[in-house]
């Protein structure tokens, strides 16, 4: 049985969002004077309070990570997944010692090399070769280690011809190749990788994944991999950790963890509250206040499977005593192609306004879109369509994650956009 190589115990990290340092002494003195001496309200406290994540409300401390416990064995390839803001980056930062935990501890055996970014410390004036040394040393390699691996690194990067040219003359692709090549040849027992695969061309990405596979399988080293790319995580990691709101939501086999991930409720993002800052057009005789999307189980989410129902609920305010209005909802694919446009009149429905604020729900049954990301545009106008009251593009996005109950086959965007399962027969 393999031994634990990383042991994390009660790890927490708090960030202050309210009373952060104001940045200058004069302001700190001003604050001290106003709040402590004059007893007035703190004028600098507002900063950062709009942080939507703080469902904890009053407290000005946000726990980016809270009471994390896990253990990683030697040779494991572990995928760390979670939504934006779940605490993935914080966890990586703590593991790579960029910042230190508020409470708890991490115990590690061997060296940790972290790749939170490729090419950290690259200097544009230095040649490729000089940057290999510099970057390698920043990542913790000794000079003689780098010398020993130099040929291998240059070979892997594929920029041999330009190795003595200053990197400022490199194309961005070459730059990334060289940077990843250095990182991939680190001799640390633990390698932490953050989304670096999002760069470079497809061929190079494949090469990177292959190299990382080598590192974990071939050389028995431990790899922690953070990514939003589920296919990459699935192909490469055996174990997974799912973070949500700074806590571990699930941990274990990667397939289980990914399926947990796709079923997380996406409360915050599946509701949007509109305000003056929203990029909108129209005279605001009718004004959208909020919009939420839910599935058939009345669960607020942005992730849908094919065959799910899409419920779009919106609140609208009547600012000019309009008696009737029309609403148009357009769904666009991620490549910005309009897919369909729905209006109440198509369904023989009329929006007749009796109150200042009203809420409507439109249900699209049996969603048959191919997996991918889709966005919603919404407009409110008068019944003739000549006067636009309120129009907001890209108000919400949602994701079709898989074929749902209909099919388990692969459905790439290139194959189509709309799923049909007509009847077949032999004649």
């Amino acid at each position, binding site marked *: 049985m393999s*031994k*634990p190589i990383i*042991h994390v115990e009660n790890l927490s990290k708090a*960030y202050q969002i309210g009373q*952060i*340092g104001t*940045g*200058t*002494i*004069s302001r*700190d003195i001003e604050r001290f004077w106003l709040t402590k001496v004059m007893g007035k309200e703190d004028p600098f406290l507002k900063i950062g309070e709009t942080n939507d994540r703080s469902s904890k409300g009053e407290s000005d401390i946000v726990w980016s990570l809270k009471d994390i416990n896990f*253990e990683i064995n030697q040779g494991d390839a572990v995928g760390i997944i979670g939504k934006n803001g779940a605490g993935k980056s914080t966890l990586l*930062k*703590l*593991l*790579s*010692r*960029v*910042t*230190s*935990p*508020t*409470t*708890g*501890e*991490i*115990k*590690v*055996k*061997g*060296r*940790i090399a*972290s790749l*939170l*970014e490729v090419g*950290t*410390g690259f*200097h544009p*004036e*230095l040649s490729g070769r*000089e940057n290999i*040394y*510099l970057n390698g*040393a*920043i*990542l*913790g390699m*000794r*000079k003689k280690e780098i010398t020993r691996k130099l040929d291998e690194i240059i070979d892997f990067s594929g920029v041999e011809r330009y190795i003595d040219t*200053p990197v400022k003359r490199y194309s961005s692709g070459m730059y990334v190749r060289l940077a990843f090549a250095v990182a991939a040849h680190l001799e640390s027992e633990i390698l932490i990788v953050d989304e670096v695969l999002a760069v470079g061309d497809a061929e190079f990405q494949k090469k990177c994944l292959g190299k990382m596979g080598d590192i974990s399988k071939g050389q028995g080293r431990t790899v922690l991999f953070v990514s939003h790319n589920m296919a990459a995580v699935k192909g490469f990691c055996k174990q997974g950790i799912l973070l949500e709101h700074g806590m571990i939501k699930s941990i274990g086999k990667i397939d289980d963890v990914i399926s947990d991930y796709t079923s997380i409720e996406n409360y915050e993002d599946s509701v949007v509250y509109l305000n003056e800052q929203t990029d909108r057009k129209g005279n605001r005789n009718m004004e959208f206040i909020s919009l939420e999307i839910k599935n058939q189980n009345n669960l607020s989410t942005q992730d849908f499977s094919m065959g799910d129902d899409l419920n779009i609920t919106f609140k609208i305010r009547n600012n000019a005593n309009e008696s009737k209005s029309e609403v148009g909802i357009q769904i666009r694919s991620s490549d910005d192609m309009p897919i369909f446009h729905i209006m109440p009149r198509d369904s023989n429905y009329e929006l007749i306004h009796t109150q200042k604020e009203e809420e409507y729900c439109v249900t699209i049954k049996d969603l048959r879109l191919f997996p991918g990301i889709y966005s919603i545009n919404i407009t409110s106008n008068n019944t003739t369509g000549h006067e636009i009251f309120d129009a907001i593009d890209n108000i919400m996005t949602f994701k079709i994650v898989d074929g749902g109950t209909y099919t388990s086959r692969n459905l790439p965007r290139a194959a189509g956009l709309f799923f049909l399962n007509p009847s077949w027969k032999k004649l």
Partner: protein
Amino acid sequence: MENNSQSQDWDLVIKGHTSLFDIKFKDLWHYRDLLLLFVKRDFVSFYKQTILGPMWFFIQPIFTTIVFTFVFGNLAGISTDGLPQYLFYLSGITAWAYFADCLTKTSTVFRDNANIFGKVYFPRLIMPLSIVVSNLVRFGVQLLLLILVMVYFYFFPVEGTSFHVTLGILLFPILVVLMALLGLGLGLIITAITTKYRDLTFLVTFGVQLLMYATTVIYPLSYAREKGYNSIVELNPMTGIIEAFRYGFLGKGEFTLWSLGYSTLMTIIILFIGIVIFNKTEKNFVDTI
């Protein structure tokens, strides 16, 4: 499993709160190659981005010396202890410039390297240390200028002035280390404070300039004593160092073991405070910047 992991010996334990004096010298030693590579980077990038290259190293002391000679030597008529005026000012400027460079450049370490510090771990002290070493190159070039000027005045002496190299020059390596560490110590304190209070940065350049006037760069200590300001000037730890520097190279200056001992003690205290504050700041500064 739990018991198993308790009994193992871990190479590294990352904790939130560690003792103030938990300075990882072993880590620092491991990253010594990085220090040299940073020095090389600074050097190469400096050359590649200028037209005149190392000429800049000469221009600053030469012009400062000329201006000082004109203003303080000729207009104000401040004594130079019987030394040729050019030599007197140049020696002071050369030593002071190294100290001032170490201080000002290390005082922005956190701000200048926020990006790299936010992405990868290495002992943060490597960065200011590499700056101090990089500055040695410049100091060496300027020292060469001083020696050239000394040779000139040896063959073409100015009437009524004299200078001679003394055994005190043997202390030179110690003086350099003292200047470097004193500048480093102050720089570390300032960089740690400026992560929280950015406005202090403006004070630094200005403060260093003021501090120069409280050091025996433009006047000899004997002149300060004559005017009764010596107690203030002697409180400045740089005074003892510059006086010893001038005594070693030019044979004039009030060099005493007592004043050098005082400078050494102050350097150690300031450096210690600097390292402790720096060490405490480096843990979490990524969150505040």
